[in-house]
Every structure is written in C-alpha cells, then in structure tokens.
C-alpha cells in the first residue's frame, strides 16, 4: 500500500511537552516539514530560545543549540559566519525576541544576516507563568497586568513584523497564524519561502506566527483559537510586510 502520509523526518520521536491545545507543536511541525522538503535537514543548525520552546533541541531532528534568553539571533550569527553554507534558524517567543532580545532582533536584520527566524507571538510569557509580553494586547489580563494592560502604565503592543520590515537588511518579513487549516497551510508556505530566501542568500527572513497559549490565557483550546481570530488578528494583521522583488 502506498504511504499516504507520514511523520516528518524533521522531527525526532520525542513526545512534545507543550500543553494541550498549544499551537507551538503545529509550528514545530511546519518548520520541520519545510526543512525536510527543502532537502537541507543535514546542513541545518537550529537555535532555540528560553521560553516554552526551550526544549526544542529535543524535537528538531538536526544539530541544535540552546541559547540564552533573547540571544538566539547572536548565536545564529556566530554559527552562520563560521558555516556560511549551512542553513541556520532561530525559534523564539515574544518575550525572547521582542523584549530582552530586541537589540539582537533589530541588528540581525540590519546586518541582513542570512538566517531565518520563526517568531512565535502568543501575546504572553508562557513559560514563566503568563506575565505580560511586549505583544500583550491592550486590556488583556495577564499575571502582571491583572486589571488588563493599560497603555499609560505598561505601554502599547509591539508589532514586530511591521517594525523589522522597515530595516534594509530584512529580505522577507511576514505574519501568519495557525488557528485554522487554511491559515496553517499559508503559514507553511511562508516558512518555506523564508528558508528559501536564506538559501538563496537574499538576507534576513522572519515569519511571525500568531500562536495560542490556552493555559495562560485561561481558555479552552477551542476558545483560544477563537480568541486568536477575534482579538489577535485585528491587532496583528496577517500578510507579507516585505518580500524580495521578483519573488523567491
């Protein structure tokens, strides 16, 4: 019998530790499939963050490095400058990428570093217990904004894709979501394109993925998907913010 579908070679057999209904797992699969489909699994080096994805080195079936909180783009830069032929990606949450690691994010883009960043925006610090993230929505309750995020106290949500798209060295910047099958397919395409941009040496690529955190949002998995659609997408519009002219 023909094999209709199989598990991607881009992931190990290790059971994921993510909470039920968390979409980190879907994003892992999409990244792994993209690397496998592009035939670059054996020359890929991944860099994982500090955040819920801290154990990603156990899941991606390639050489992996665990970086300090926020520093994955710097670590990836070190790898890529030593091994220019390799494919290097970082996988980072919003606290990691857009708070403690903002400088690294901006400068990896400004250098046009030929790496790919997968940015998981779940509007909260998942790992440390649901604190406010730079991407937390106005009015959103978190453990450190118990009355909802107020702009005059805690500032405004940071739109990373829009911000990074203004940087000259950024070649491909897009925002996707993984809340519906259709959006998941789109996310897959975006991730493939981001890796292609790297492989073709066009510059820095970043895919922002709107993701759920049912645990810290205090919602059931289906409610979390609805919340993502109704609250997050209006604040974080989907689409390409920058793409190489002439396509990839």
């Amino acid at each position: 019998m023909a094999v209709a579908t199989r598990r991607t070679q881009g992931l190990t057999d290790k059971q994921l530790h993510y909470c039920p209904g968390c979409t980190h797992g879907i994003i892992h699969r999409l990244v792994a499939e993209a690397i496998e489909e592009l035939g670059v699994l054996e020359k890929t080096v991944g860099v994982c963050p500090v955040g819920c994805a801290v154990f990603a080195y156990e899941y991606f079936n390639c050489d992996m490095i665990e970086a300090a909180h926020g520093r994955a783009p710097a670590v990836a830069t070190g790898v890529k400058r030593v091994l220019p032929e390799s494919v290097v990606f970082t996988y980072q949450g919003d606290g990691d990428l857009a708070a403690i690691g903002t400088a690294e994010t901006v400068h990896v883009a400004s250098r046009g570093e030929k790496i790919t960043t997968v940015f998981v925006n779940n509007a909260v610090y998942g790992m440390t217990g649901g604190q406010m993230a730079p991407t937390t929505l106005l009015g959103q309750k978190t453990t450190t904004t118990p009355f909802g995020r107020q702009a005059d106290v805690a500032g405004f949500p940071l739109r990373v894709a829009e911000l990074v798209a203004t940087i000259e060295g950024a070649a491909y910047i897009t925002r996707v979501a993984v809340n519906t099958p259709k959006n998941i397919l789109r996310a897959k395409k975006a991730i493939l394109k981001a890796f292609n941009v790297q492989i073709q040496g066009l510059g820095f690529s970043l895919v922002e993925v709107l993701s759920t955190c049912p645990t810290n949002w205090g919602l059931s998995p289906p409610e979390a998907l609805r919340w993502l659609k109704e609250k997050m997408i209006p604040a974080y519009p989907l689409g390409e913010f920058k793409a190489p002219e002439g396509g990839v």
Partner: protein
Amino acid sequence: MEKVLMKGNEAFGEGAVRAGCRHFFGYPITPQSELPHYLARRLPEVGGVYLQAESEVAAINMVYGAAAAGARVMTSSSSPGISLMQEGISYIACAELPCVVVNIMRGGPGLGNIAASQADYFQAVKGGGHGDYRLPVLAPASVQEVIDLVVTAFDLADKYRNPVMVVGDGILGQMMEPVKLGPPPEVTTPPKPWATTGTLGRKSRNIINSLYIEPEELEKVNLRLQSKYRRMEEEEKRWEEYHATDAEVVIVAFGMVARIAKAVVDKMRKAGIPVGLIRPVTLYPFPDQPLVAGSSGPVKAFLVAEMNAGQMLEDVRLALCGRRPVHFYGRTGGMLTSVAEVEGKVREIWEGLK
C-alpha cells in the same frame, strides 16, 4: 630571529591570528580599541571574519555560536563590557565550548575611567557569572608574552573545552615593545566531533546546551566540570620567579605591577636587601606552590602589590594559611603603583623584620 615593534593591543590580535583564530566578535570600548582595529584589518587578509556586534551581550553570544560551530574564536573588551558578557561566559562554561576572552582592565567600579587597573581580578578568577564554574586566566606582563600567551590560551581552551580569559591593562595595551615573531606556530586544533555543523556525515545529532532540568543530571554535569577544574589546577599553574629562592621579602604581583616590582627587586638587591618576586602567570589556577615552598625557606614576609584594593591578596593568604605575614600595597581607581611606593613598603617591612 627578526624583531618587530608592536603595540600590546595589536599583539593580542596577532597572537590570535597565529593561533589560527579566524573569527572575532566585539564591541568598541577603550582602552582596548587597537585590538579590534588591528583584527578588522588583519582577519580579512587571512580569510577570517571580523564582526562588530551591537553590544557585548551580543558579542559573547556570537562567540558562543561560532565556538559551537567548531571555530577558534575570540572576543575582547574592557571591564564594563566584560561585566555584560558574564551570563554568556557562564553558558559557554556549562556548554563546554572553547573560546578566548580578552579583558584590558580599566578603573572601576561603574563607568570608572580608562586608566590601567587590575580591579577585575575577582570577576576573572572567581567565576564572574552565575553558577559554579571556573576559567583559566592568563596575565601577560610584556608584549612578547601577550603573543605567546594568547596562543597558549587557545590551546588551553581546546584542551579543556572551556572559555579562557587573558587579562591586561591599558598600559600593556598601549605599550610598544620589540617582539620576536618567528614562523607561525604549528596550529594543532583537536578534532571537534561535538560541534554543531549539521549532521551531514554523522549518525547522530549534536546538541550544544546548558539546560539540565533534573537536579540529579545537573549535579552530574557540575561534578564533571569540577573534576575538569581540578585537572587544570594540577596541570596548568604557571608563574615566574625572580630572585625568589634566597629572598627574605617576596613581592607577589601580576601583569604590569610585576614589571614595577622587578625594578624594586633590582634596586633592593643593589642596596643589599634580599627581595624577590613571584609573578603568577595564571591567576586561575592560582600558583600556590612557589608561595608554600617559599614559606618553608628563608622568606620572612610577603608583600602583595596590585592595582586594586586587595584581590589577589586573598588567594595569597589562602595559599599561605597564615604561615608567614602577608602585607599589601595597592592603588585603585586607575592609579598606578609606582616603584617608589612599592620600594617604601618593602623597606618598611624589612625594617620591621629586624
């Protein structure tokens, strides 16, 4: 052998190139600027990469990535910048990656100033960052020794899969001295089968990590690290002795202060006072043998001289365990310890012994 005139900071750079280092990541800070200036020119000549990072935090993490990918890699900075690197150095120590970090120390604390200082001794030899870790610390005292010890630093880093620090100060960095370069040493980099270079040609994945969520596992890692540090303590202590065997007063000083102390020893010997010098070349592991040996010989008192408020002093006292009196002379804030001042202190000790 032909001698060339070289600035200390440039010698750090040339030493790295001679050691086969082809990757440098750093962030500008005085008084080490000539080092990155030199490498920005020199590394591209030898097919290497010089990259100016957005901060010392980024620089040390680039070093982490480059070392993980198997390269001989270096960064350099001065005191405040080294403080920013400490989290990264702790990660590198736990992940057991080789790299070399240069600290051209300046006056502190705080923004302090750019004058010569040795006030980062504690930070360098007692861990610096979080967790139980150590790194070999080398303290050259001449431009020639800079070149030689930077090569040694890379070898030690690879031998132990550990970060190695080389410390100097603004005087050593700015000073020009003739150096014998000779043909470049044969670089023997050990194979790095653990490096994250992509799995091609390998059966299993490589992972560079410092996370061990189970305390039992992390303790095992710590025990392994500790046994590595004990091995360093057995095999890597280095020091220089100058008129120390028959001395009754022994000055203990490192780096540029040891140069000053040598002048004091010469002067005292001419005056018929038996003074000697022990100069630790490795600050960690600390060379306690010559001190202990000295204390069972004719030495009646030790004088620790430093450009800080008394940091190596603690290691000297620990080594001697009260066997002999240990005196101290130090200047802080970037003030230089002068020959006259050290001489005055030595004479005071000598008079007290009579």
